[in-house]
C-alpha cells in the first residue's frame, strides 16, 4: 500500500531535505494531507486578516487613504480568501486529519483522490491570489459576485477585467476540491469504520464530518453550475444568463449562489461544532449530553440549511417571503438544542480549562450572540431594516467566521499534541484567547450597533456622523487587538514546534480513538485498537471499571450486537504482529 511505502521512506535516518520535500509533495497519507491543508489554510487566513486590517485602517476615519477600486478589491478578496481559502479548507484539514483516526481507519477510502483534492485546492487558491497581478486587478464585486456588476453588459460603467474570470475559475476549482473531499469523507465513514464502531458510536466530530460531507456533495455542484454560467456570460454569451438586457435574469445567480452558500455556512460551522463537542466531552469527563439529540439536531440543521437560501434575498423583491421566514426561524430550534446540550455537558462536570476548552467556551458565547442576531434577520420586516448594513456583517462574523474560528482554534490546541507530539504553550494560549476574545467582541458587537444606526456594508467611506466615527474607530482598534492575538498564536505555533513540552500518545485523557495511537501516529495509524463499546472507547478503558456500578454509565451507548459498517476493515489485531 502506498501509505506503508511512505512510512518506510520516512523512517530512513538521514533522509535529506529533498527527500522530505518530495515525500510531502507526493504523500497520500491523510494525516500529512490534513497538515498541509492546515498550513495552507492558516497562511491564507493570515492573508485574509491582513486584508481586514487594510479595510479597518481605511474606515477608521472618514476620508479615503486608498482608492475606491482598491478598497472594493480588498473587501472582495477578504471575503473570498476567508471563506474559500481559510474556513472551508481549515475544516477540511481537521476532517482529513482526525476523522479516519477517530473511526479507527488506516487512511481515507481514496488516498490518491484525497491528495488530488488538496493540490486542486492549492492551485485554485494560487489562481485567486494571482489575480492581483493582472490588469484591472482582482474581482471586486464582493465574494457574492452578484451580476450584472460582474459582467460587461454595455451599460455597466466599469466592467471587471480578467481578475473576475480568474475568480470564477478559481472558485470552480476550489468547489471541485471540496466535492472530491466530501465523497472521500462519506465513503470513509460508511465503509472504513473499525469493528465495533457503529454509527451511534461515532464521535461527534465524525458525525459533523458526515453531515458536512453530505452538504458539500449536494450543494457545491449548484455553485459550480452558477460559476460556469457566469463564466459563459462573461466570455461569449454576453449576459444571456444573468443580464436582463440580453434576456438573462440577475436573481437567478442569487438563487443558485445561495443554494450553495447558505449550506456553506453550515459547512464552515459544523466541523467547529464537532470539535467543541469532542473537547467538552474530554475536559468535563462526562459523556456529551444528549448524544443522539446532538446528531439529530445536526441532521435537522443540515436539512433545514437547504430550504432557507432565499433569506439572503429578502430585499430583492423576488422571494416568497413567508416560507423562507418560517424555515429560517425553525433553524433556531436545533441550534438551541445543541447549545443547551453543550452547557449541560459542563453542568456538574469535572471541568478543567486548558486553552482548547477556553476556546470552546468562547465558541459558545460568540455563537450565542450570532444565533440571537440571526433571529433579527429571520423576522423579514426587521431584516428590511438591517439587510446589507453592518448589523448583518456583525451577525455573520459572530456565527460562521469568529465562532467557527474559535472552534478551529480549539481544534488546533486540542490536536496539536497529536499532530506534532508536543503541547502548545498554555500561557501564550491564554494570552491569545483573551486578546482575541476581547478584540473580536469589540469589532463585531460595535458593528451590530453601527448597523442598527444604518451604516451600509461595502462602502469605502461614510458620511461624517459623530456616532459612526467613534464606532468605526473602536472597530479598527478591536481589529488590531485581534490581530495582535493572532500574532501571539503564530509565535506560539513556532515556539511550541521547537521548544514545546513533549506530549505522550494521550496527553488530554482523550476519549476517542485518535488518542489510542502514538503522537504523531505512524503512517498506518494504529498498531492495535481498543475494544469499541461506546462513543468513548478510551474513556471506557480508563474509567469503565470504576464506573461499573454507576447506573447512568453506558445507558446511551447504542445498541450492542451491531458491528456497523466495519466488516470490510481488515482485522486490526492481525496488524500487531506485522
Amino acid at each position, binding site marked *: 500500500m502506498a501509505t506503508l511505502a511512505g512510512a518506510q521512506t520516512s523512517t530512513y535516518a538521514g533522509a535529506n531535505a529533498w527527500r522530505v520535500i518530495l515525500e510531502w509533495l507526493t504523500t497520500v497519507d491523510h494525516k500529512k494531507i490534513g497538515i498541509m491543508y492546515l498550513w495552507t489554510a492558516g497562511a491564507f487566513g493570515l492573508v485574509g486578516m491582513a486584508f481586514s486590517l487594510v479595510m479597518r485602517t481605511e474606515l477608521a476615519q472618514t476620508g479615503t487613504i486608498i482608492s475606491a477600486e482598491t478598497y472594493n478589491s480588498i473587501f472582495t478578496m477578504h471575503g473570498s480568501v476567508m471563506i474559500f481559502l481559510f474556513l472551508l479548507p481549515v475544516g477540511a484539514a481537521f476532517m482529513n486529519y482526525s476523522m479516519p483516526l477517530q473511526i479507527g481507519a488506516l487512511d481515507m477510502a481514496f488516498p490518491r483522490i484525497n491528495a488530488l483534492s488538496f493540490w486542486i485546492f492549492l492551485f485554485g487558491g494560487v489562481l485567486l491570489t494571482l489575480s492581483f497581478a493582472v490588469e484591472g486587478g482582482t474581482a471586486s464585486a464582493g465574494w457574492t459576485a452578484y451580476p450584472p456588476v460582474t459582467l460587461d453588459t454595455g451599460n455597466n460603467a466599469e466592467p471587471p477585467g480578467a481578475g473576475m474570470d480568474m475568480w470564477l475559475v478559481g472558485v470552480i476549482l476550489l468547489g471541485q476540491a471540496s466535492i472530491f473531499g466530501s465523497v472521500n469523507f462519506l465513503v470513509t465513514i460508511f465503509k472504513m469504520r473499525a469493528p465495533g464502531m457503529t454509527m451511534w458510536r461515532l464521535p461527534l466530530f465524525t458525525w459533523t464530518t458526515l453531515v458536512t460531507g453530505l452538504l458539500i456533495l449536494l450543494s457545491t455542484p449548484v455553485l459550480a453550475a452558477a460559476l460556469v454560467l457566469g463564466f459563459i456570460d462573461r466570455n461569449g454569451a454576453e449576459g444571456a444568463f444573468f443580464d436582463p438586457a440580453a434576456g438573462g435574469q440577475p436573481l437567478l445567480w442569487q438563487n443558485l449562489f445561495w443554494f450553495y452558500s447558505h449550506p456553506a455556512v453550515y459547512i464552515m460551522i459544523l466541523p467547529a461544532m464537532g470539535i467543541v463537542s469532542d473537547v467538552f466531552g474530554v475536559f468535563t*469527563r*462526562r459523556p456529551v449530553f444528549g448524544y443522539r439529540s446532538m446528531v439529530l439536531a445536526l441532521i435537522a440543521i443540515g436539512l433545514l440549511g437547504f430550504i432557507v437560501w432565499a433569506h439572503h434575498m429578502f430585499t430583492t423583491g423576488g422571494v416568497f417571503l413567508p416560507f423562507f421566514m418560517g424555515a429560517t426561524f425553525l433553524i433556531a430550534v436545533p441550534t438551541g438544542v445543541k447549545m443547551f446540550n453543550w452547557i449541560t455537558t459542563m453542568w456538574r*462536570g469535572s*471541568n478543567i480549562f486548558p486553552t482548547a476548552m477556553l476556546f470552546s467556551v468562547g465558541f459558545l458565547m460568540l455563537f450565542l450572540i450570532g444565533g440571537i442576531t440571526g433571529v433579527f434577520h429571520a423576522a423579514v420586516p426587521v431584516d*428590511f431594516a438591517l439587510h446589507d448594513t453592518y448589523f448583518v456583517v456583525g451577525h455573520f462574523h459572530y456565527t460562521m467566521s469568529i465562532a467557527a474560528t474559535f472552534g478551529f482554534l480549539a481544534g488546533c490546541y486540542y490536536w496539536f499534541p497529536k499532530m506534532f507530539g508536543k503541547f502548545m504553550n498554555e500561557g501564550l494560549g491564554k494570552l491569545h484567547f483573551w486578546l482575541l476574545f476581547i478584540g473580536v467582541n469589540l469589532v463585531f458587537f460595535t458593528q451590530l450597533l453601527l448597523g442598527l444606526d*444604518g451604516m*451600509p456594508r461595502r462602502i469605502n467611506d461614510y458620511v461624517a456622523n459623530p456616532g459612526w466615527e467613534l464606532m468605526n474607530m473602536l472597530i479598527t482598534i478591536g481589529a488590531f487587538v485581534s490581530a495582535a492575538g493572532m500574532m501571539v498564536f503564530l509565535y506560539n505555533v513556532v515556539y511550541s514546534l521547537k521548544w514545546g513540552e513533549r506530549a505522550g500518545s494521550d496527553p488530554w485523557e482523550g476519549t476517542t480513538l485518535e488518542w489510542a495511537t502514538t503522537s504523531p501516529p505512524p503512517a498506518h495509524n494504529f498498531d492495535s485498537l481498543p475494544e469499541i463499546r461506546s462513543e468513548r472507547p478510551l474513556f471506557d478503558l480508563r474509567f469503565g471499571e470504576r464506573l461499573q456500578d454507576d447506573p447512568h454509565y453506558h445507558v446511551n451507548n447504542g445498541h450492542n450486537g451491531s458491528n456497523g459498517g466495519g466488516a470490510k476493515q481488515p482485522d486490526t489485531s492481525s496488524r500487531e504482529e506485522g
Partner: protein
Amino acid sequence: MRAYQRLWRTRFGRLTLVMGAAALSLLALTGLASAQVALPEAVTEQGDSIRTLYFVVFAIGVVVFVIVEAMILWVVFRYKRKSDDELPTQVAHNTTAEVLWTGIPTVIVVVLFIVSFFVLQDIQAAADPDDEDVVIVDVQGRQWAWAFSYAVPLGTELAENISPDLAETEIHLEDPSLVVPFMTLKLGVEHMRVVARTGDVVTVERAVNGTVAIRHRAGTEVMRVFNGTDTVAEGRLQAADNTPIVTVPVGQMIRFNIASADVLHAFYTPQFLTKLDAVPGRVQTLWVRVTDAGDFMSQCAEFCGRDHARMIYTVRALSPADYDDWFEDKAGEAPAPVEGDFGGEEEVEQEEGAVGNPANGQNLFFSLGCNVCHGDTGEGLVGPTIAMTIVPLDRVITQYREPLEAMTEFPPDQVSDQEIADIYAWLQTVPRPPEADIIPSKLAELIEAGG
C-alpha cells in the same frame, strides 16, 4: 458569591474577571457612545410597525441571551475539577429537559413567525387608488446616482394594444398632437421616449429610464414624465457634493416604483427602516406613508461598483401644501404642441455625413449615462446645462478626455471622437431651458470669457 470568591483566589480566575470587566466596560462605552441599541426613530407608518416588531424580537433576544449566558458562566465557574481522580456524574440525557429545550424555543419561534407575518402583511399593504390619492414616484438607480421622476396626465389615451417585445414601437394615441420631440411618456409603469411622429403614428423608444417593456391595452392613460430630482448644494462626501433629492408629501400613501438602468442598487432610507433592491429588468414597488416632515439622508445599500459609497440621496418630506406647490412648480406647463411631422429616417439621413449623427448621439447620451448628471435633455441636473452648448466641439472632446471639474473621464476606447460629435449634434437639437434654470458650467464661462 461563593463561586466568585473561589474564582478570585486563583491567578487565572483574577485574570478572567479583570479582563472580563474590561471587555464589558469597553462594550458599555461603545453602547453609550452610540446611544443606539435600537433602530432609528421611524418617520413612516410602516417603519413604526417594523420598529415595534424589532423591540419584540429585541426583548426576547435579550432574555434568551441573559439566561443562556448566565448558564454558561455558571457551569464554567461553579464546576471545576477538584482532584485528579474525580469522576463526575455520567448522566447523558434527560428526556424532560430535552423536550423542554426543544419545545420552548419552538413555541417562541412560532409566535415570532406569526407576529412577523402580520407585520409583513401590514407594511406591504398597497393603497387603493380609488380610496385615496396615491403619490407615485419613479426611482431610477444608475451608477452612481439616483434620478426621481413624476408624471402628470397628458390628456390622451392609447388607441391600440401594444405588445412588450419591440425596442422601438409605433404607437397610436387618441391625440398624437400633444407629444413633442424627446418627451418621455409613461404607460403603466413603463417609460417611453418619443423619437418621431409621422401623421398620426408616434414612434417611441420602449422601456427607457430602467423600466421594463410590458403589454399595454387600448384605453391606457398616457402620462407625461418630468424629472423631479432636486439637488442640495452642500455635500457630505467627497465627490458627492450634490446629492439628489426626492421630494414627497407627509401623510399621503407614496408608491416608489424602483428601477435600475444598469446593475443592482438598493433604495435605502434608514429612517424608513426598510429597503428594496433596484433590480435591472424589474420594476419593484415600495409603499410608505411618511409621518414626519424633514430631510432624511439615504444611500444605495447594494454594492454597485466603484462609487457605491457615493450613491447618496436625500428624501425630503414636505407638508401637503408645500408639496403641492413644489409639484406644480416642477411639473410646469405641458409643452406647446408641435405642428407637422418630426424625427424619422429622412431627417437623420440628412444630418449624416455632416458634423454628427444626432440619433446615434441621443442613444449614446443615454447608454453612457450622461443623462444621470446632465438630465434627460441636457437641461442640467448635478452637472451643468449642456443643451445647445456654446462650447465648441474640439473643446468638448478635450473635456471627455481630460475632464475639468467632477465629470467622469471617457477614454477613446469607450467613446470615439466621432461618437462625441454625434452626441454634440444631438445636444444642438434639444431645447435649451430658460435662462433662470440654467446650471452654469465653468467650461462655458471660460469660453465666454474668451479662454
